């Protein structure tokens, strides 16, 4: 290794000291470095040509080859997180696992939404307030009539009744028994008109208005307060008028 004449002469004009320094390469490198660098460079250039030329952001070599594996690995790790935590507390319980031992009826979850969302509502029968008053009055009358009828029949069991009356009474009792057995009193009551009930009460010599007032006063919350009677002498009349009973 020798410095060329031009460079040496130039150097001598600047510094005699530096020109006298032995012209040697002090650094060394492995003998096979330059023979191996070609393959290394080729690999880098190929990888760069494949991934680097169209994207400003670089990824480590082999990143995409191992990407799916790395993602699956992470999923598994997260799935095992509960297992690892449980194992720290109890190896036995962790070994049992968390498999669900319970089963649901077939198609349960498919039908669940229908059952919760589209279940038909029960029919609501609205009753007017007047009907409510009559209901109790009629119930009391009907019960009384049935009771009286039964007592009369028992008391007069030795008397001979006309056939027509006997058959009609027996039919009434049978019908009443059916109503009581089947619990369809309300339903049957719906079929009776207000006029029929009033007419029936009048035929039986009942004071219809008194019966209605008595029935209405069962609902104590609707009655005027005690003080209202003192302040207004028409309090009771107004109440009856309001209830359409005056």
């Amino acid at each position: 290794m020798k410095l060329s004449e031009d460079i040496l002469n130039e150097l001598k004009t600047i510094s005699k000291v530096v020109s006298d320094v032995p012209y040697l390469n002090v650094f060394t490198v492995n003998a096979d470095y330059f023979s191996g660098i070609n393959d290394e460079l080729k690999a880098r250039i190929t990888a760069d040509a494949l991934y680097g030329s169209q994207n400003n952001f670089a990824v480590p070599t082999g990143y995409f080859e191992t990407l799916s594996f790395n993602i699956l690995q992470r999923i598994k790790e997260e799935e095992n997180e509960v297992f690892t935590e449980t194992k720290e507390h109890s190896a036995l319980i962790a070994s049992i696992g968390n498999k669900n031992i319970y089963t649901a009826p077939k198609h349960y979850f498919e039908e669940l939404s229908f059952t919760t969302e589209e279940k038909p509502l029960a029919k609501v029968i609205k009753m007017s307030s007047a009907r409510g008053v009559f209901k109790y009055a009629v119930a009391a009358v009907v019960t009384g009539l049935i009771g009286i009828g039964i007592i009369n029949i028992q008391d007069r069991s030795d008397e001979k009744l006309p056939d027509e009356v006997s058959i009609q009474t027996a039919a009434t009792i049978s019908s009443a028994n059916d109503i009581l057995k089947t619990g369809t009193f309300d339903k049957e009551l719906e079929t009776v008109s207000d006029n029929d009930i009033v007419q029936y009460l009048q035929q039986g010599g009942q004071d219809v208005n008194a019966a209605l007032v008595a029935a209405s006063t069962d609902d104590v919350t609707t009655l005027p307060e005690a003080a209202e009677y003192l302040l207004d002498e028409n309090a009771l009349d107004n109440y009856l008028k309001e209830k359409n009973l005056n």
Partner: protein
Amino acid sequence: MALPQDDIELLSQFKNEATKERAFTAILKKYQEKLYWHIRRMVVEHEDANDVLQNMFVKAWKGLANFREDSQLYTWLYRIATNESLTFLEQQKKRSTVSMSDEESGLSNKIKADTNFDGNKLEWKLQLAVQKLPEKQKAVFNLRYFDEMPYAEMSTVLETSEGALKASYHHAVKKIEEYILNS
């Protein structure tokens, strides 16, 4: 200055997809050692020199198709190598939390850590002195002293006028002389 005939042929082959890789391998083999030593003298350690060399050749691969044949291939390669080396040193400096003087001594320490280092020998003293130079001045000195590059070509490599390069080289030699005399 006209391109050497073999460089013209290699560049022609590089533009052909079928012979591209073979041509680049030939370019590598032709210039890799010179470029390696140039880089090595700049960054000192082999591992760093290897990284910089590979980076510069990757850039050469990308840019060679657009290489204008009005300049020398080897000066173009030297320019990439020098820029990559300077960039590397700049990055090292930014990463380091130590001051500039400590960074210089860091390079000096790398030289002293070399298994063949002998502080009594002038050639090693010269290398220690070179590491004290500002980076651009270090490049000028190395290109002229070790690579014996003409100023005209160096001007292309460093994109600096020949006069400025001569002045820079002069200052660099004086600083090295001073270091050798005082160490």
